[in-house]
């Protein structure tokens, strides 16, 4: 659905995006992460035809963004990182204006606007002026605007920034709902735990170059990270450690605080084995919990933390 080929954008000497190749399948939610100044916003701007790439091309639904600007704009809903609002308009008028800009017929507009207002939970605000909304409300209004022409592709640049936890959860729900409707979503965010929950694929970009692209599951072998399990027993922790150390697939066992952290050899999993062994040896197994690979950790390992 979205595809870039050696996409580059230079600002003078600075390479904001360099030879970026990325593919996003239809119906995916693609999380785009990277440190500040990595080139996320630049890439998104090129995809929505607001910037000309220096080299390379990008396609949306098979359409070259450089050649078919207008068609691409019809397909895409874009929410920029700094979203402005027309402060003279009311919420309803604002949305209807964009409906008209996407040449939706006048008699259909009312229904559509009311639909997106409902979807984003803004019905009560429809006659408020746009600039009287709080930051989070404006963000939701931005999302409502993106949805107004029922785009196939959504490109959202940090849509959750400035939102309270509740609104974030709501946005997450909304994105899931949109995915169910078959939309392709590209989303950038600095809140990684959030992306973790909704994204099928992630791309990590640094200095304009893709350092990783794939599913969350792919990232583990990519980084050479082994799976870990946390084990908790009521008594005889030392003996349990002894027992577990002897098991073949297990590489390392250590005691952290009040639990035992077990690391497997690469590519092996053995939650069942641990449970069985412990129970057979009459340990009181309280909990057995796979340790999540945090996207944060992956992010820290993959990017060098240099901001340019």
């Amino acid at each position, binding site marked *: 659905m979205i595809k870039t080929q050696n996409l580059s954008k230079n600002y003078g000497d600075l390479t904001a995006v360099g030879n970026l190749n990325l593919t996003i399948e239809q119906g995916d939610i693609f999380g785009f992460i990277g440190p500040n100044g990595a080139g996320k916003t630049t890439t998104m*701007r090129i995809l*929505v*035809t*607001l*910037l*000309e790439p220096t080299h390379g091309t990008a396609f949306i639904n098979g359409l070259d963004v450089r050649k078919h600007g*207008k*068609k691409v*704009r*019809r397909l*895409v809903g*874009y929410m*920029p990182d*700094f*979203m*402005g*609002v*027309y*402060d*003279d*308009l*009311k919420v*309803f*008028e604002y949305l*209807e*204006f*964009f*409906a*008209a*800009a*996407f*040449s939706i017929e*006048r008699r259909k*507009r*009312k229904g559509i606007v009311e639909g997106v207002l409902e979807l984003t939970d803004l019905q009560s605000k*429809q*006659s*408020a*002026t746009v*600039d*009287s909304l*709080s930051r989070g409300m404006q963000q939701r209004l931005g999302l409502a*605007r993106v949805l107004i022409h029922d785009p196939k592709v959504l490109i959202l640049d940090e849509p959750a920034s400035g939102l309270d936890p509740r609104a974030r959860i709501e946005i997450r729900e909304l994105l899931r709902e949109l995915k169910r409707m078959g939309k392709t979503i590209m989303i950038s965010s600095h809140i990684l735990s959030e992306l973790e929950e909704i994204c099928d694929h992630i791309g990590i970009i640094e200095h304009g170059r893709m350092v990783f692209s794939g599913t969350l599951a792919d990232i583990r072998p990519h980084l050479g990270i082994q799976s870990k399990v946390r084990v908790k027993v009521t008594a005889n922790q030392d003996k349990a450690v002894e027992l577990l150390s002897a098991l073949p697939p297990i590489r390392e066992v250590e005691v952290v605080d009040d639990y035992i952290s077990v690391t497997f050899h690469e590519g092996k999993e053995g939650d069942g084995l641990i449970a069985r062994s412990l129970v057979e040896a009459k340990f009181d197994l309280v909990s057995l919990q796979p340790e999540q690979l945090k996207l944060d950790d992956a992010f820290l390992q993959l990017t060098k933390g240099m901001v340019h």
Partner: protein
Amino acid sequence: MSAGLTDILSVAPRLSWLTGPIFDKELRVSSRRRRNYVLRSVYVALLSVFILYVWFATVSFGRAASPAVFQVSRMARVGKNVITAIIWFQFVAAQLIAIVMLSTSISGEIRQRTLSVLMTTPINSLQIVMGKLLSQLLQTVLLLGISLPLLAIVRIFGGVPWDYVVSSLCITLTAAVFAGSLSLLMSITSRQAYTVVLTIVTGYLIVFGVLPSLIGLLSPGARGFFESIAFQGNPFMTMLMRTYVMLALPGRAGTFSSWPLHCAIMLGATAGVVALAVWRVRKIALSKAFGGGKGQSNPAEMGKPASRRRRRRAALPIRRVDGPPVVWKEMRKPFSRRGKRVIILYAVLAGMILVSFVPMLFTGRGRGGAGYALFYYLVSGFSLIAIVRLAVLSAASITSEKEASTWPILLATPLDDAEILRGKAIAAFRRNVPLLAALVLLHIAIRLFMRFGGPSALYSWLYLIPEVITLAGTVVLVIGLGLYFGIRLKSTNAAVAATVGVYVGLAYFCCGMFSNLLLYPLLLRGGGGPGRRLYMLVSLTRTVFVGLAYAGLGILALRRARRRLRYSVF
């Protein structure tokens, strides 16, 4: 220039109780600004063009009029004319520059949210105001310094008394100081520079232009007395009197005018304005720092309790979008952000026009010079307002979207580039229709009330056609330029300044001055009869041609704008 600045910087600490660190900061910043270099070059360029024009006009006019006598008194006459030209140019330029330089002095601090930060430091509001005022005025004075050597050179031609030069410099300085302080005061409540500039210029036109003419028109008996009072606080009239005296023209008998007294009055008025500014700055800064609440985040709402305006707008009904969306959205904007005040301003203007027509109706004729002068001020005032408003509406319709970062969103819609531009142009025109109509009416009114007799009556009505054509051409040109600069530049102020600047340059220097130079000999050679008719015909065609040329340039600018639309979105 930079050496001069550092010298001044080293003196500055002694004044620091008055100006504080603000002065220092301003000087450092402004010496880095590109704007000041542009300003200096433009000033020098305009001054040179202006002097050359006066020179050639005097020479060619003189030669054509009386070739024999000409040689004798030539140099002194040229000298006097050039000096007068320089001094008047300086006089007008200094005030304009002071107004422009200070037009964002406080609003800029408020917009960058540094004012309340400043107020939390030991800097007091007097220091803020004086620091801003003095640093910008210093820039203005430095600019004036450029033309001083010229004055010295031209004096070689002789015939110009020193006291004229000195007194006019004093009048210029005090006028600039006053205008600057007024601009600073207005920048406390006005967000945009052009609002400040336009309001002050309009106010000047009314107070210093229309009012004196009205006084002259309405009170013929006590004219000398009223005029003396009205003129004493009027820098333009004081300057005019000095010039009359220098050129040994008859001037106005019975009108008292003393330039030292005038300068003292202007300084006193400045002190009053500064005091008011200090008081208001403190008030606003405090309300920003403590009274604000969360709604204050929007710089559009500066200087006023935000909630009242919001409540008023929230009460309006929802309007459905009709027709082309871009036009609809532009038309939806309020007539002006400070609605009532602007409407009052226009009401005052309209009232003055009415008042000025009444005596002419009763006496049958506009009283010669005063009547013409009044109409002249009215027409030029109205044209200026209409043109600047048109420039603002067209340029700001794009730059304000850039400033509010809605521009990328609009460009991400499938609206065509041409559709967007067309919508903005149509809306700018439609929002300006009342003023343009008033302008056309004024042109008609002049003819009705002036009651020219004989062949010039026909001619004056005939001339209405090219005038309207020129006006239409001007509208196309200004909209074209406005949209073009709106697309090329980032800030509304810069785009408006560029639009008005280019328009004035074109209109005044290219079309006005040089075609006048070509027309002079024609006018003089003819005398009366067929020659005069030829002159009229030529000037008529010229006006039509100018109108068409404007329209052509405007369309060209629109096409360029369309091509550049997506070049610098961010």
